[in-house]
């Protein structure tokens, strides 16, 4: 265990505090989540929690306790990644990064909102942009570009098909494509 963290945590992982979720945090170097003292500063700083059911403190607590419901609930997806909790946590936990890690674990298990899945599968993987200006539907956006004397397509992946191939190769190599395909199968079922 990292010495710095050992110092704040002051205890080894005991069985009762050991969860699969926590294990994933530790394995990817996010062990400092264990330093959480449940103070609620993150919840108190959260602009999303002011209007939704997101309680950042409980999300972190559930991750520590290995409560799987945190992966299925919509709460982790209500975070706008404003980073206020990250800045204010008195234990220097990178709280926003923890929420994002939980999202990663959730997606790994196939928990992803439909609109997010479509964005990843139908737009990002195919065009390598998150918002496209290609295709018949987006003609007006190309014309808008032209009206400001810009080329109808920007000099991005939109203008270089081989660059799209490069990005797709990378996404296959790091197994993102495989993950998306697995989720796709699950959705069909």
């Amino acid at each position, binding site marked *: 265990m990292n010495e710095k963290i050992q110092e704040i945590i002051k205890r080894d992982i005991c069985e009762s505090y050991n969860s699969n979720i926590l294990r994933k945090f530790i394995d990817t170097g996010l062990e400092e989540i264990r330093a959480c003292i449940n103070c609620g500063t993150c919840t108190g700083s959260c*602009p*999303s929690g002011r*209007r*939704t059911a997101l309680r950042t403190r409980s999300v972190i607590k559930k991750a520590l306790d290995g409560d799987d419901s945190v992966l299925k609930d*919509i709460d982790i*997806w*209500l*975070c*706008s*990644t404003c*980073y*206020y909790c*990250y*800045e204010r946590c008195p234990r220097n936990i990178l709280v*926003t990064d923890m929420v*994002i*890690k939980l*999202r*990663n674990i959730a*997606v790994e298990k196939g928990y992803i*909102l439909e*609109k*997010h899945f479509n*964005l*990843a599968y139908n737009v*990002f993987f195919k065009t*390598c*942009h*998150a*918002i*496209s*200006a290609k295709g018949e539907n987006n003609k*007006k*956006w190309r014309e*808008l*570009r032209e*009206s*400001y*004397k*810009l080329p109808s397509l*920007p*000099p*991005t*992946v*939109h*203008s*270089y098909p*081989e*660059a*799209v191939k*490069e*990005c797709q*190769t*990378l*996404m296959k*190599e*790091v*197994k*993102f494509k495989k*993950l998306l395909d697995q989720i796709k199968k699950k959705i069909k079922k």
Partner: protein
Amino acid sequence: MNSLSEIQNDNLKYGLFLGCIIPNRYPMIERSIRDVFDELGMKLLDLKGASCCPAPGVFRSFHNLTWLVIAARNISIAEKLGVSPITGCNGCYGTLRDVWYELNHNYKLKKDINKELNKIGKKYTGKYEPKHIVQVLYLDLGLDYLRNYIKYSFSNLKVAVHYGCHIVRPSDKRPWNNEYEYPTFLDEIVELTGANSIEYKDKNLCCGAGGGVRSAINEVAADFTKEKLINIRNAGVDIIITCCPFCQLQFDLGQKDVANLYMDEIKKPFNIPVIYITQLLGLSMGLDPNRLGLIKNHTLKDISPYISYKPFLKLIKEQLI
């Protein structure tokens, strides 16, 4: 003080990282960045074949490794040209800068990422710092340098400045001396143009769009935006100034969403023009409003800006003559 010649001797060159929203939904922002930088004597190189940064709220949330490797590819395109990638988008800034930071502090990760990049014949070194265009204006050029270019002063204009989140946070990976709560750099650039930056309640509240919230749960995003817009309207301003196309979209198109969803609460539509920082700066530098994308010269429907720029142009017209 940076003198003009000193800076020009450095031969400032950057790689313009466009991202997705700027070129594909708010091209007037691209137009204004290109023209203002050109006027300031800087060279912007195109990062040919660059992709989505990838967006931190969605794609990083889905698969961290994809986020790292695609961002590293984007940065490597600028490295090959020997320049820093600069972006006008807080989201792209967050991604490029956080990945740059992470890879430069984690040797093993950097090696692993390079193993992947090698498969497409690319390499990441981390030698060039990704920057926001506001960072270039404020830190690389400086207010004194910019002041030399100001021709018109808009002393009647009242502005609500919106920073957005990722230009200042996480503050340990940003260049603003850990100031995450009360930054002033954008207000200072706005006030260079003679305009008044008006204080308003919860100025640093997030617009609501980030984190994948707008893309999947729009009502929640619009609820953030409603709160901000009410505070902004109560302060009595003429325009909103942003330095991020996603915040810009959220305030611009978002005014329509808020009107559709929450009319009983807001009573009447806001109709506050939302202007990008280089559009305002360019105007005060004397650039043609056409070149800044402020004049509508097409008949396209359902297109940005959703809230007309006209009241803004009318306001400043007298001060332009």
